[in-house]
């Protein structure tokens, strides 16, 4: 095996949104959507990011493309610091990094044909002439399993699965190195979901793509990822190789999350950890460990000190005081 090359390195990423209020609309607080998240993505791998709604996984994904401007931290992509790029240079950089969204209908212009949607990124980046772009569009449609006549149709004429294929074709058009996919299959039915997952895996092999795959469905993430990171309330609580994470979760949150997933096997007899309460508001996150309000193993130190994100062997990272001894 050749040495693994790091394609993307995110360090201490923070994204805070101001809360305005009072008579003068002054800033009265901050929503800490992403609070000090670090991870790396190796070339050709799929990094899965899981977490519940509001944990900051989407904001993290969008920050990589600077669709959300990070408040602090560094994002290095192929030895280039993205946070320092000018708007124009960042726009050029998005040829290398593309995004696939959850709701393909919302991300396609209803008045433009699917073909036009796929050609648009080629025009934006000035690739090819008119004829070449049309040929490329047809080629891309066949790559994602659609026919060339589909290019003449409008988004509403497609099913959800087909729209997601168009979204993927569009992301592929500029031959990116990295694709950030934000919940790409969660709006799809089971039988269609597996078609799209298989397609994404085939394309990864075919075009040597690297994926950051953001989802809330733990089974889907296990299927597609090489490594998985678990987020909770703006922070990364655990990150490890896929099988290591699912078979030997270290963090109590990961353990509870995995035990809570309904498994399609009526004979399965599992120990279930049911967490009480809701996720606290990111506008007012708890002191110390953000999970301490729901953690079954909470200790005094958890309420005071935020645990650091340490390597507990074999590149298995976790942030929990139980492990720090």
């Amino acid at each position, binding site marked *: 095996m050749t040495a693994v090359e790091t394609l993307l390195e995110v360090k201490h990423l923070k994204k805070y949104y101001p809360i305005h209020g009072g008579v003068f609309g002054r800033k009265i607080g901050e929503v800490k959507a992403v609070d000090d998240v670090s991870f790396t993505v190796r070339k050709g791998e799929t990094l899965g990011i899981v977490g*519940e*709604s509001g944990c900051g996984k989407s904001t993290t994904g969008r920050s990589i493309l600077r669709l959300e401007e990070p408040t602090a931290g560094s994002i290095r992509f192929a030895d280039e610091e993205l946070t320092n790029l000018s708007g124009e240079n960042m726009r050029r950089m998005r040829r290398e990094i593309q995004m696939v969204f959850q709701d393909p209908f919302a991300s396609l212009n209803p008045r433009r044909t699917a073909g036009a949607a796929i050609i648009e990124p080629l025009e934006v980046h000035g690739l090819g002439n008119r004829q070449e772009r049309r040929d490329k569009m047809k080629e891309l449609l066949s790559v994602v399993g659609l026919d060339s006549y589909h290019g003449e149709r409008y988004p509403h004429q497609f*099913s*959800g*699965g*087909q729209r997601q294929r168009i979204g993927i074709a569009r992301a592929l058009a500029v031959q990116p190195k990295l694709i950030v996919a934000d919940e790409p299959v969660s709006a799809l*039915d*089971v*039988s*269609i*979901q*597996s*078609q799209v*997952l*298989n397609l994404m*895996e085939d394309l990864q092999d075919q075009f040597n793509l690297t994926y950051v795959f953001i989802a*809330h469905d*733990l*089974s*889907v993430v*296990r*299927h*597609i990822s090489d490594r998985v990171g678990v987020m909770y309330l703006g922070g990364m609580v655990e990150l490890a190789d*896929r*099988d290591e994470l*699912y078979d030997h979760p270290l963090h109590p949150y990961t353990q*509870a*999350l*995995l035990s*809570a*997933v*309904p*498994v*399609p*096997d*009526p*004979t*399965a007899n599992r120990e*279930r950890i*049911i*967490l*009480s309460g*809701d*996720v606290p508001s990111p506008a007012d996150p708890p002191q110390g460990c953000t999970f301490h309000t729901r953690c079954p193993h909470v200790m005094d130190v958890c309420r005071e000190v935020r645990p650091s994100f340490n390597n507990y062997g074999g590149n298995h990272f976790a942030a929990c005081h139980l492990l720090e001894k």
Partner: protein
Amino acid sequence: MTKTLLEIKEFKMHFHTDKGVVKAVDGIDLSVNEGEVVGLVGESGCGKSVTSLSVMGLVPTPPGKVEAGSIQLAGRDLTRLKRREWRQVRGNEVAMIFQEPMTSLNPVFTVGSQMIEAIRQHRQVGKKEARHRAGEALREVGISRDSILDEYPHQLSGGMRQRVMIAMAMVCEPKLLIADEPTTALDVTIQAQILDLMRRLNQEKGTAILMITHDLGVVAEMCSRVVVMYAGQVVEEADVNTLFSNPKHPYTAGLLRSIPQLDKRSDRLYSIPGNVPNPRQMPTGCRFAPRCEHVQSICLDREPPLFHITTGDHTSRCWLHGTEKEDVDRDSSRDVVRS
């Protein structure tokens, strides 16, 4: 002896639109016994939600029209009810909870006033007593602070809203609770809380639950019997263990194989080719035939009946289980085989 609570027979709900007739539910049989949890599974557009809305009398007619069949709830045919009579049934004998509680709670009224309205609709009690009962119903679902009665739905989290919906549905102690994708909009840890709550209500109060979902994991954990729908028809029915260990219909089998597993990883997922058929142009013969890997010539030609598999209550709508002649159902009181 278990008594049948809900019995849907040969029920057809069609929608007459400008562009043609949509046969959303096209001849289904389904029953729920007292105290039973039955799963109704299928993908978008298979007719599972129209089925549940029909039981609640919530399908607008027109465009909807009951073409045939009956829905018996505790011996009463719901398809013949008048508007006035529906009010007696809805919320009282059968209640429903929906996927997105925010859209089914009224944003401009407090939780308390909406619950009190529901109670006073069905019970002759004063406001004070109704408020007291509302508070009790909320405690049943694990909300112990009474102040929630004076809060508005937007002040609650998704899990809390769903709890309020369940409390509201249970307030008149219906015999049947229809839950249409009750946890689909919720996070995994909150889903576990809500499923736990529903299981407890079933066990403690004996409320029968018709659980409509696309999530086979939820079905496996909650239900004792499962009905699988495809393109407006029931394609398979079995008890939960049989369905997961020995699915007979190629659609059910394909669906089970296409779910990624949490505890083991396969290199490649199975996927059912193609898409669900257009409800305005159903294929002739078996509706699953265009996507089926076992398709034979008869499938394209004639619609299969529900065949009985072995002696149990396992039925499957597929020609693989025999020809019409040899497998006509003789022992069951239900006329399962139709042509």
